């Protein structure tokens, strides 16, 4: 177990450190650097989709994923309108609670 955790910790760190450690000595080719500018939005949206599909897989029917989808839609709309993350997340979670309660009842 100790070896496993050490292996996980070390490999995770090396991956995260890799390009940062090289920074200053070696620059990425310009096209690569420009493409990487898209990585935050791209990775986060891919994580959202993957997480949701995971939830859908666990669920027995499509209906049970609807509250999650709708609450994300609510949060997205509020972020668009108000640019306030905490407010949007709060509203999204509240919507989720209400929808779940409604669908179970």
């Amino acid at each position, binding site marked *: 177990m100790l070896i496993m955790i050490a292996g996980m910790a070390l490999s995770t760190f090396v991956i995260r450190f890799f390009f940062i450690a090289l920074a200053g000595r070696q620059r990425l080719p310009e096209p690569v650097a420009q493409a990487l500018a898209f990585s*935050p939005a791209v990775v986060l949206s891919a994580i959202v989709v993957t997480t949701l599909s995971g939830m859908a897989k666990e669920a027995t029917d499509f209906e049970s994923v609807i509250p999650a989808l709708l609450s994300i839609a609510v949060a997205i709309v509020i972020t668009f309108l108000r640019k306030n993350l905490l407010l949007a*997340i709060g509203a999204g979670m509240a919507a989720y609670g209400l929808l779940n309660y409604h669908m179970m009842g």
Partner: protein
Amino acid sequence: MTTIKNGQSTRDGRLNSYLQGAMATIPLIIGAIPFGIIFGAIAFDLELSIYTTLAMSVFVFAGSAQFVALGLIATASPALLITGTVIVVNLRHLFYSATLAPHLEKLPLHWKAVLSFSLTDEVFAVMSRHYDNQSTVNSHWYFLGSGSAMWIFWNISTITGYLSGASFPVMYDMGLEVAMPITFACMVVLMLNNTATVAAVFVSAITAWLGKDLPYQTGLLIATIAGITTGYLISKMPQAREKHTC
């Protein structure tokens, strides 16, 4: 903002940046807490010791990789396979490292190492936005604030989940894990400030959906590559360029 004084960093400025970084991470911490709790609870279920469980959150500090590791421990996989799988699951962090590297160029190595250690999905989301909008001489303190806040709450939620292990199904039934996709989706919305990014996100989301059944989140990697390639190509189209210079 009082973080810059004649381009020099002051003690107040550093503390300020540290706190701002921690504050900016709060929404993402909210999204991550349910996952920490569920992680702790599953570890309890698998009869891991509290030390082993906590050691993962303290030293590995990588949510999805920790979950995958639990799944493999449950099936009694060998340590080498678990490490190999963790590497594959974490490969997307190479993109994080490469994306932030230019901003960390001038820091001493120990700073680079500490900040790299804390480069989770959440901290990356916060820092890439920070460097886009409001980079200062104290940005590394902002990074440290973000990373340490995330790390502290990740560990607190892990312990909480482990200790409340027996009552955890209640939490799971409530579906609190939806907090993370909600938070990430909102972050993406804040980043959609040009056509190329919108297209990149669109392609990434579709690819992630198509690749959702691939093992060990390799779908995520393929989606990332497809997305950033799309974004790059569209930003190079003459039309998009004109828009940019306007």
